[in-house]
């Protein structure tokens, strides 16, 4: 029997809100699937669309980008800039055929540990359901890069 599919999910989050929210999920001992790997950034303003593409290149089946709610940005308006970039890049990705479920965006505050845990569970479940991102994996395979040792 083959093992059930466990997606690889990468989350890019700002340190002041979503990272702190994830910490709160931890201190509250909320449970969520272990598929997510978090990359911490100072602000959503620092999250480049390139990160998303590189995560996909590293075989991610899903990506989450998350930061402070509008108005709560530690840097006053980094997240407003980020929101515009996301709007544009999200639309571009979908137009290029990256399914909506694969790249998600959210606002999660430092107080929303529960939202973080629930969202990770939901995203993981969604991606388990739609399966591995085979079309992208095929592109990676085409590059001929060898498997790691």
């Amino acid at each position, binding site marked *: 029997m083959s093992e059930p599919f466990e997606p690889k999910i990468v989350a890019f989050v700002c340190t002041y809100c979503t990272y702190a929210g994830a910490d709160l999920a931890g201190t509250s001992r909320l449970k969520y699937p272990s598929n997510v790997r978090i990359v911490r950034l100072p602000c959503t303003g620092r999250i480049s669309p390139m990160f998303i593409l590189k995560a996909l290149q590293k075989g991610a089946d899903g990506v989450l980008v998350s930061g402070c709610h509008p108005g709560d940005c530690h840097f006053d308006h980094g997240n407003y800039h980020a*929101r515009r970039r996301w709007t544009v890049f999200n639309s571009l990705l979908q137009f290029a*055929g990256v399914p909506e479920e694969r790249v998600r965006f959210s606002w999660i505050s430092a107080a929303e540990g529960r939202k973080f845990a629930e969202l990770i569970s939901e995203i993981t479940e969604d991606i388990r359901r739609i399966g591995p991102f085979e079309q992208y994996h095929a592109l990676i395979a085409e590059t001929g890069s060898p498997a790691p040792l």
Partner: protein
Amino acid sequence: MSLQEHYRSQARELLAAGAVKMVVGYAEGTTPERRRPVFITEPEECSRLVLDARCRTNLAGYLLREGLLSDGREIAVYLSTEGVRTINILAAESQLSSAQVRILGFEIDRDEVKAMEGKRAADFSEAILAHKERRKKQAPDELAAKLEAMNAAERFTFWQGEFSRCIKCYACRQACPMCWCRRCVVDNNQPQWVNTSSHTLGNLEWNLVRAFHLAGRCVECGNCGRACPVDIPLHLLNRKMTGEVLEAFDHYPGMDEHQEPALASFRKDDPETFIL
């Protein structure tokens, strides 16, 4: 007098009076169908200038040739509305001063070439506004509509096929008047964000990044599509982005030379329906 003649004599006068040091326009090409960019500096050469419906290239990018404008002198350029919008963006992004650009404006309507009145980019604001209104109502072209109707997997397959042809010649970038970076992101190898190899992954990354960098800046002049030797429908990506910024931020690139770039500005009530 035809517009061609009219602009020829204007060009001649401008050069003769020393008002401009160069006229960037169109000349006959290798074949009767072809027009080519030409750089005229002597009044007597102005008879080479051609203007008709085959003059499609957006010439604005030539103004950014290193050192061309650094003496502060003016240059006259044949520009369509897209070209004027390009000047506005280049001025807004501090790549040139619009006061140095004397415009010979024209518009191509099917097979007709028509004059557009004005000398400076700022004189064309009404025409640009009309373009914006028209753009808002413009329906997606056939291929775009077909793509929108597809599901994600089909769209991915479509683009995979298109991008697999990309030979990474970067003609799209070179032809684009907005691609003026001293160093393109793809040429930065520390780190190498964009795979330079011409495999489909690298091609996809390159084309997505270029579309992203043009979001809110592309004037849809078509230079990239005409330059692409393998006819990748690049315009679809750029048009999608233009539509997106227009709808989401009411941003139409190149309205005037003070317009803030869509991605370096924001409104607190920007839409965010996709954010969880």
